[in-house]
């Protein structure tokens, strides 16, 4: 690779550098990325539906979601716009617990997360189960604000954050790996920050 004349860079500690995926920089803010305005969602009308294609399999109201076991995940998150934030703390319901509550086994290997603003994004099922993804309702101990995806967003922290759909309303199992909103616009189908899978033809 070519060296940039006169560039030395600003180094962070070895421990931080080890936690930072390639091409990312560390921020202490919590930037926001979305395709349009944050929708206003009334909890009385909020629901979360798991479906197989067009067929609903299970549905929860906001109160029903609160009755499920609430879990905690803490760790680092990475956005494709190149910021990473360390030591974030989330609470919500593991996808495993939703599936168990409904007595469901994933019927296919792929899923689309669906949002109230008509956003969607694809995530393979193995990345949603086994304690790897949750329907998050709290950030840093407080209910999720609308700009960060509240009342509930998907959290798949081991993938770039656009996979963690904000304003979540459902999860649809699909027969094939179907591209979602950003994936149709040139972003990667999987989005592993450690492999820098930002754009569709990144390896």
């Amino acid at each position, binding site marked *: 690779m070519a*060296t940039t*004349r006169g*560039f030395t*860079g*600003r180094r962070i500690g070895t421990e931080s550098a080890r936690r930072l995926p390639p091409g990312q920089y560390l921020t202490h803010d919590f930037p926001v990325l979305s395709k349009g305005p944050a929708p206003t969602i009334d909890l009385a009308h909020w629901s979360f539906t798991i479906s197989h294609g067009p067929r609903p399999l299970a549905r929860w109201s906001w109160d029903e979601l609160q009755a499920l076991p609430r879990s905690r995940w803490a760790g680092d998150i990475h956005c494709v716009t190149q910021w990473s934030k360390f030591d974030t703390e989330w609470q919500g319901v593991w996808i495993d617990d939703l599936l168990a509550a409904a007595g469901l086994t994933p019927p296919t290997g792929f899923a689309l997360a669906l949002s109230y603003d008509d956003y969607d994004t694809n995530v393979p099922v193995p990345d949603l189960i086994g304690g790897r993804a949750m329907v998050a309702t709290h950030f840093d101990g407080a209910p999720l604000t609308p700009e960060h995806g509240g009342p509930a967003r998907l959290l798949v922290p081991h993938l770039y954050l656009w996979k963690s759909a904000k304003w979540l309303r459902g999860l649809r199992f699909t027969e094939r790996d179907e591209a979602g909103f950003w994936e149709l*616009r040139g972003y990667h189908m999987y989005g592993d920050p450690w492999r820098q899978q930002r754009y569709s033809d990144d390896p």
Partner: protein
Amino acid sequence: MSAPPDTLAPTAWQEATLVRIDPVTAHMRAFGFDAPRMAPHRAGQHVDVRLTAPDGYQAQRSYSITSAPGTGLQLLIDRIDDGEVSPFFHDVAAVGDTIELRGPLGGHFVWQPADGGPLLLVGGGSGLAPLVAMARAWATAPEVPVLMLASARTWADVPWADELAGLEARHARRLRLVAAITRAQPVRTQDIGQRWDASRIGAELQRWGMLPRHAFVCGANPFVEAVAQALLAAGVPAPAIRTERYGG
């Protein structure tokens, strides 16, 4: 327009030559590149820039393209004092340097004349960068009505303020520019001396007499969210509003 045969994929890194540096505002400079292998861009797209230190350490950032399609590659870089990449561009980079970049990237926050209008562009500070590219693209075929709402500390902090005002003067019945000047007295009679809020935005839309078919909002997050909610309140349908947000 077909791309030259040696054009690279937008995700492939390529070496570009820095050919121009122009002051734009007190904190922003425009950087012009010769990137012969880059495919043609659309207004609103960005490039990724990657800097490499002698030991292999790399830093990567995204910058909006400000040039109109077909007029080269120009980026606007705001100097973030505690930043890593923007101070390099402002303090170290010189004409003739080789810089690695890739693009054009982004397929959502994009407008081209064929998309039509009415077109509403709302930007704060360096968030005006992709909107300037759209205004310049519009000027090549100035057909649809455009309302551009800018926000900056002073008129001199609006990037390319004079060029935009010149576009407005040339196309007075097609393009209207209103600036919210937040830290000084507005110098032009149509500008306002306060931040954009729901009532001011509603009033400007009413004066314009139309609802936009396409609305693009770019800037710092609180600005973007406040403007987007104000547009919804003014009756602009959510699917018409596209946002791009900078920083935290």
